């Protein structure tokens, strides 16, 4: 089943933000801080203002009336004081922070003029580590806005009774979504309708509209957000950033459309970063390797401000730390700290990539300590199918952690069978004997999906028979149009290719909660199923009573045509005819609601928890520290897959992203807070040569009881265990359990570890080329 989205995209007719232009538009260029932390002494804009073609230069004074940028509300209090202004007020707190904006007729010219703005900054002490002692955010406020604390069970008792205590100090590197398309925002103010339009929106158009309405003091109905094609989301795109607000203010004040397209250097220092945490974790275990208690203190590097998601990533990390394992007692303290780096928020599988690294490192450490097979340690600790639904006394993103369904141990056995684990061990043993440093690792993970609380869609059939589905959800390139059209087509009885899916437009539907947290298929899909089912019933009822002299239960919809089940070949009517029958005059005359249309609303306050495991086979070059991934298997139980091809696409794609974070990608900062990875030469996305073809095992063994179709989400499916499994595989390859405590595992770090442990030996002649 091919995607509805693809034809324009393969023929060059995609319409991404940079392709949106309006007559007489201005181009905005942001002047950014080149200091990690400092006091703004002066900003000289005189040369810029005087430059030919300059339509305006703003600094904080020009936007002082705009309140700080809102973030998504959570139950965690006390974060408001740490919000970012659209332009820096008197201090800059990260390299890349907007301090001024210029407007010009042309994007090249705007950059020339921005270079004329002279910003003088007096440096202040820089904080580049969240695990160092907190410093000053502003007078009277330190850089630790909150500590996330969660606890259940008898922790002290468990540690007293423990056979052994395992302690680890683990670090996850700073990396992020980095979509191929940079951000973009084009604002236009239509004076005739008093409507502010923002193009280039995605992910959460309605909540973003409401946020902008509050900041700009306009009614939500007077702001329309429009989605274009989106060149990848991954959590970072589609949130409200300074630039989104600035283009809106600018078009209102300057009276011309205003376009801003982020460049890649900006993207790597201004778009949300993610992941960076350090965990000091302790586990109390019994003699068989069962966890009795888990105690974790971690440091979350939030970067310079609290924006977009508040403290959700730290909170989610804390909640998901026990993963798929039965943990009787638990305590976590997550220090949510600000540093002088680009602000952080969600990146695909937020909190789970991190927590999975922690619990899987722990599993391997337990195995090493007790000399037990790592598989057995996992088997002994995994929550069993009979324990479902399994309640854990913590919440995540405001929803309870009630693991809805699954047989985790059975899934593990399937994974081992798929990869041929035992044969693999034999093969690797032979290769190691021949001098190769090869090894395999396994990592199990628990995902979460389907964030509520509610979602709605409207499905209509017009008098030509065309089906339109309107949703408040958004597309981030994941194929949601196809999936929703399939669900709609199946429920309604039409070909999915005849369903037009309208999304990302706040002027077409009043509400929507967007495309995030692997929720669209579950929430919008369920609402679609409900709406299409209602519409079908309505059509059958009208056809039965007015058109076919039958009862509704005798009818079916096949390819858009209502037919008698019992008498094939007998007279039938089309959905288009039914729609005509429901045209306003005809419908009202018969006392019916006009229009062949139905709305579906789906509410679900609980999340569905998918799960899976990864297996990696790697080969290590002991001389250079290089790691080659030879094989990779990613498994996932999704409950029910609407479109397996698309789910597998999500798994493979996210797995390669995860391998980036495990081996290549890192936002490195020097001691002055200067980011060192601001080009694609330094921020290294994996290429086709750096990863193998990812093998996928997609299972549908545990449908969720939480929604009518049994769905679980797949958007974050393949990334969660990548860091964990690579660490495990490298240790196996080297025969050195416990050495990998930090991601990404760069060649430099690995070679150093080998040298420190006296294990660097000259082996392979890999990749050598011979000429004579």
């Amino acid at each position, binding site marked *: 089943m091919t995607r509805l989205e693809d034809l324009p995209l*393969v023929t060059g007719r995609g319409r991404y933000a940079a392709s949106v232009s309006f007559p007489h538009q201005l181009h905005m260029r942001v002047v950014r801080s080149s200091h990690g932390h400092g006091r703004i002494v002066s900003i000289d804009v005189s040369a810029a203002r005087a430059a030919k073609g300059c339509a305006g230069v703003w600094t904080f004074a020009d936007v002082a009336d705009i309140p700080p940028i809102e973030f998504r509300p959570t139950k965690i209090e006390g974060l408001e004081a740490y919000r970012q202004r659209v332009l820096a007020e008197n201090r800059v707190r990260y390299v890349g922070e907007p301090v001024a904006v210029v407007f010009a007729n042309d994007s090249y010219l705007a950059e020339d003029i921005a270079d004329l703005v002279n910003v003088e900054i007096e440096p202040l002490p820089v904080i580049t580590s969240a695990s160092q002692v907190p410093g000053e955010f502003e007078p009277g406020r330190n850089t630790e806005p909150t500590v996330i604390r969660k606890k259940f069970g008898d922790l002290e008792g468990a540690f007293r009774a423990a056979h052994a205590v395992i302690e680890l100090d683990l670090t996850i590197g700073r990396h992020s979504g980095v979509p191929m398309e940079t951000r973009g925002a084009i604002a236009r103010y239509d004076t005739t309708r008093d409507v502010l339009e923002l193009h280039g929106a995605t992910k959460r158009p309605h909540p973003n509209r409401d946020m902008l309405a509050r900041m700009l003091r306009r009614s939500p109905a007077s702001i329309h957000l429009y989605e274009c094609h989106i060149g990848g989301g991954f959590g970072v795109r589609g949130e409200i950033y300074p630039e989104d607000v600035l283009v809106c203010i600018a078009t209102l004040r300057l009276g011309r459309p205003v376009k801003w397209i982020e460049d890649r250097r900006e993207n790597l220092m201004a778009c949300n970063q993610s992941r960076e945490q350090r965990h000091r974790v302790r586990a109390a275990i019994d003699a068989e390797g069962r966890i009795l208690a888990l105690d974790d203190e971690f440091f979350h590097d939030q970067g310079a401000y609290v924006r977009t998601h508040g403290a959700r990533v730290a909170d989610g990390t804390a909640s998901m730390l026990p993963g798929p394992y039965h943990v009787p007692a638990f305590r976590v303290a997550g220090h949510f700290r600000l540093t002088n780096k680009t602000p952080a928020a969600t990146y695909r599988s937020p909190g789970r990539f991190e927590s999975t690294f922690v619990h899987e490192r722990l599993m391997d450490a337990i195995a090493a300590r007790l000399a037990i097979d790592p598989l057995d340690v996992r088997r002994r600790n995994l929550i069993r199918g009979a324990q479902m639904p399994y309640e854990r006394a913590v919440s995540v993103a405001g929803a309870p952690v009630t693991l809805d369904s699954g047989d985790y141990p059975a899934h593990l056995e399937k994974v081992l069978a798929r990869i041929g684990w035992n044969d693999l061990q034999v093969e690797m043993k032979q290769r190691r004997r021949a001098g190769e440093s090869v090894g395999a690792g396994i990592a199990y993970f628990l995902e979460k999906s389907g964030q509520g609380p509610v979602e709605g869609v409207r499905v209509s059939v017009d008098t030509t028979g065309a089906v339109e589905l309107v949703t408040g959800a958004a597309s981030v390139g994941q194929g949601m149009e196809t999936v929703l059209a399939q669900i709609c087509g199946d429920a309604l009885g039409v070909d999915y290719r005849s369903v037009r899916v309208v999304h990302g437009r706040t002027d077409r539907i009043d509400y929507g909660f967007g495309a995030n947290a692997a929720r669209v298929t579950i929430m919008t899909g369920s609402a679609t199923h409900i709406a299409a089912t209602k519409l079908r019933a309505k059509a059958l009822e009208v056809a039965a009573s007015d058109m076919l002299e039958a009862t509704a239960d005798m009818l079916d919809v096949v390819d858009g045509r209502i037919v008698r089940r019992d008498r094939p070949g007998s007279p039938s009517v089309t959905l288009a005819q039914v729609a005509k029958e429901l045209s306003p005059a005809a419908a009202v005359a018969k006392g019916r609601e006009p229009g062949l249309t139905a709305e579906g609303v789906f509410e679900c306050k609980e999340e569905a928890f998918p799960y899976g495991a990864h297996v990696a086979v790697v080969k290590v070059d002991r001389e250079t520290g290089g790691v080659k991934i030879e094989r990779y298997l990613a498994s996932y139980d999704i409950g029910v897959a609407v479109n397996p091809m698309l789910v597998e696409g999500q798994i493979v794609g996210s797995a390669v992203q995860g391998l980036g974070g495990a081996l290549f990608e890192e936002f490195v900062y020097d001691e002055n807070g200067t980011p060192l990875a601001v080009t694609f030469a330094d921020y290294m996305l994996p290429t086709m040569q750096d990863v193998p073809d990812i093998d996928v095992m997609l299972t549908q063994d545990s449908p969720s009881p939480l929604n009518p179709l049994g769905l679980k989400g797949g958007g974050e499916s393949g990334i969660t265990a990548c860091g964990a499994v690579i660490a495990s595989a490298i240790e196996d390859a080297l025969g050195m359990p416990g050495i990998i405590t930090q991601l990404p595992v760069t060649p430099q770090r690995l070679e150093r570890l080998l040298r420190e442990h006296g294990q660097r030996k000259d082996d392979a002649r890999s990749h050598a080329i011979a000429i004579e």
Partner: protein
Amino acid sequence: MSHETDIVLTVNGGDYAVRVEPRRTLADTLRDQCGLTGTNSGCEHGICGSCTVIIDDEPVRACLMFAVQAQGKQIRTVEGLAQGDKLHPLQRAFIDHHALQCGFCTPGFLMLAASVLEREPEIGDDDLRVALSANLCRCTGYKNIIKAVRVARSVMQSQKAER
């Protein structure tokens, strides 16, 4: 001269008369002045390959070339890949094998792959992987891209045999 100059670009067989500053890149000129927005700019410093076009039969990063340098050359972009409504085998294979998600890198990959298969129709799988690693994709994990290009390779070979 730093002021704007009149040039003619030959793109997909058609001529585009445009006025550009010498500093304007070919990528920006194709997009903003020729109206050919299928060529996407992903990094503007020559690494991601989203802006790959074919110039005189060779793949080129359109962000690392100025429009004034492209005069008199045969430029091909993604808009010229299909023949009318008939999709190029690569386009067909990308759809059939789910080789795109967000689609942003797709035009660059299509043009890169087209240049590779035109130059080396019998290219082996390993060399193909090396050749395609010139461009970055953030959605697909590459598996389906290489699968689609392999399929297109076969289709193009048999089309050639039929001729």
